[in-house]
Structures are given as structure tokens and as C-alpha cells.
């Protein structure tokens, strides 16, 4: 939760989901929008969630690992 000025903040969590907070909508590729359920959501990155697009914690069972430390914006 670094200080930021944009409307949307996207946080790739190490070995975990992508957190998205701010003003955004999740739009289905072929269907209606997805109800976010809450202001800040965790989107599945390991591909194994049973509640996609949301994270359900399954990455912690499978030992999912990431190595995508983002380069900070200047």
C-alpha cells in the first residue's frame, strides 16, 4: 500500500495473487461484468483458484512461486 496518485493500484503479491484497489470494473470476456464483492480484490495468478477470477488461497497449497518484482516507477 505505497502512497500513490493513480485511480487504480495493482499490486503483484510475491508468490500470490494480484491485488487491485481503486476505481475499476471486471468485465467478462464474453459475458456480463463480474461482481467485485469488495472494494479491493485479489485476482488469481496461479491459475488454480476455484473462484476465478478471484484468488481462493489455493496457491498456498501448491507452493506457487513468482519472480516478477516490478520495476518501481520513477
Amino acid at each position, binding site marked *: *500500500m505505497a502512497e500513490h496518485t493513480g485511480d487504480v493500484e495493482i499490486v503483484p503479491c510475491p508468490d500470490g495473487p494480484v491485488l487491485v484497489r481503486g476505481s475499476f470494473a471486471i468485465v467478462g470476456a464474453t459475458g456480463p461484468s463480474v461482481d467485485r464483492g469488495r472494494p479491493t480484490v485479489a485476482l488469481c495468478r496461479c491459475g488454480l483458484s476455484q473462484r476465478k477470477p478471484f484468488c481462493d488461497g*489455493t496457491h498456498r497449497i501448491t507452493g506457487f512461486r513468482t519472480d516478477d518484482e516490478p520495476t518501481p516507477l520513477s
Partner: protein
Amino acid sequence: MHLPPSRGAVSAALASCLLHGDEPDALNDLVEAALVLVDDLIADDDIQISLFMLYELHYGGFDDVDDALEWNPDLLRARARIEARLEEQLRSAVSVTEHPLPTVDAVAGALFRMTAPTAGPGFSRHVAKKADEQQLRELLLHRSIYQLKEADPHTWAIPRLRGVPKAALVEVQCDEYGNGRPELMHSALFAQTMRGLGLNDDYGHYVDQLPAVTLASLNTMSMFGLHRRLRGAIAGHLAAIEMTSSIPNRLYGDGFRRLGHDSATTLYFDEHVEADAVHEQIAGRDLAGALAAASPELLDDILFGAASCLLLDELTAQHLLSAWRNGESSLRQAERSRGTTRTRAPGHYHG
């Protein structure tokens, strides 16, 4: 709620003070004596129900107790004596094997390792696969003493934090409190689950049936939350709660669905699968991790708070599974013998 029945000399003396305005001199003598005689505070019914009564004065209070007693110095003195011993016992009982640097990544990583899901049979898997209807009811009764005021003990910490950790805690708590929609408060969803099983959802309705270890879990949260000195511990405690929630709640929901309960009844568990996958990241990184980075002197307490949560969860799970494996109720015998709760016929746990 009304003041629950006492369970021994200390809680009886405390009840006299609370209900009849007796001077707390005798209470403090009895507390002092009990703390000499009692070895394991976590398992002591008299001490834990007393602590529950003293803390409840700061939450919803009791219908039959004067609200002004919340800040009675003698009652606070009795509470402080018990708290000192409880904290001492917890600090010597927990094992903290992680020693991260005070950085966001290192602390969050350590907390995730401490709370990593374990393979093999466990409490939540028992609920998913084997628990019967009465065991589900007992599970809800044990959980109700915290879940009907879910998030409240950690909310005490908000004014004690600043900056990123404060914003993180508020973000998590907003979700816990339904983001402005009272019907979506997690405590309200839990009440809905209780009603789904025909249980009374008034706070404290079943407290007399709950054993010391169940009360000790809540009392520990209250102690961490009410002392600014322990703000690291309450932050670590919340991180541990959130990090041990998504997968167990999925399994709890499976158990209730297996026995035919509807989606309104399982909504509480389903909500926690998604919500706590978010909260565990925020609590681990932006609350606990950022707090350690800003105040490295709190790092040890952050880990202590998390380890305390895990210890009490484990002790509670052991209590329930042990009773169920013996074909017994996990609720207090004294209460059951009064016939105020449904009991199941003696049987054997098929594990």
C-alpha cells in the same frame, strides 16, 4: 447479554462486585491466590470466565451490570494481574522459529511460512468430511463468542497505528464490517449461519457452555487489542487469523453443504474464502510488514501475536477433536447436565 454464571471463587467474587457493587478487595485477594495456585491459565475456567467478564465491560457490556464499572480502578487492577500471568504464559508457550529482518517482504514471508497449510488430517478436514450435525452446531457455538463480534478486538488497534499500517487495518476492517452494509458485516453473516442451524444468535447466549480454552482465544485477542504496548501483537494476531482462513473456511463450507445446509447458511464461509485471500496479503504486507519496517522494535511482538493465535487455534482444535473422537461433546459438562443444550447419544468417532 446478562452476566454469565461464575465458575469458581474468583468469578463468583467478581460477579458480586459487578451485580451488587461489592468492594473489590476480596476479589483482588482471590485473584492473587488463584494466580499462585493455577498453573495453566488457558485451561482454567474460573480465570477465563472472569477475564471474559472484565473485557466484556469494554465491548457490549452486560444488561445487569452498571456501565460505570468499565473503568473501576480495582477491577482494572484485578484484570491487570490476570493479564500479566496470561501474557507470561503465552510468551513462554509459543515457539517462534522465524527471525526475519524488519522489512515488508521478509516479515510477510515469515508470517506466510508460519501459517503455511499443512498436509494430512486436520480440524477443518474433519469438518469437511466427517463432522455430524451436532459437531457442526458445537463448532458454531465455540466460534460464536468471537465471530458474533468479529473484527472488534483488532479494531482497538486503529488509533494506535499511523500511516500505511493504519490504512491497511482500516481497509481490512471496512470489509469485515460490510463496507457500509450492515447485513454484510461478517458478524451478521455468522449470525445468519447460526440461525440456519436453529441456534440463538444473541451475543453470549451460549457462553456458559464454552470451555476455558475457547474463552482464552477471545481473551487473548482482547488483551492484545486493549493494550497499546501490545499493538505489534494484535497486528501479528490479525495477520495469522487472515492467513489461516481462506482454505479452512472452504472446508467448513464443504462440511455444511455435505449435510444439506443452504447457501444462505454457508455464505459466511464462502465470503471468507475470497475476502481473506485479500486480507491475508494486506494484513501480512501492509499491516504487519509495514509496521515492522516503521517500528522494528515491534517485530518480536508481531511474531509473538501471530504465534499466540496459532497456539490457541491448535489448542482449541485439539480440544474439539479429542472430545469428538471419544464420542463426547466439546461443550462444558456442567452446562450439559443442566439440560439446556441438545446432547448427542454416546457414539464413536469414525476417524
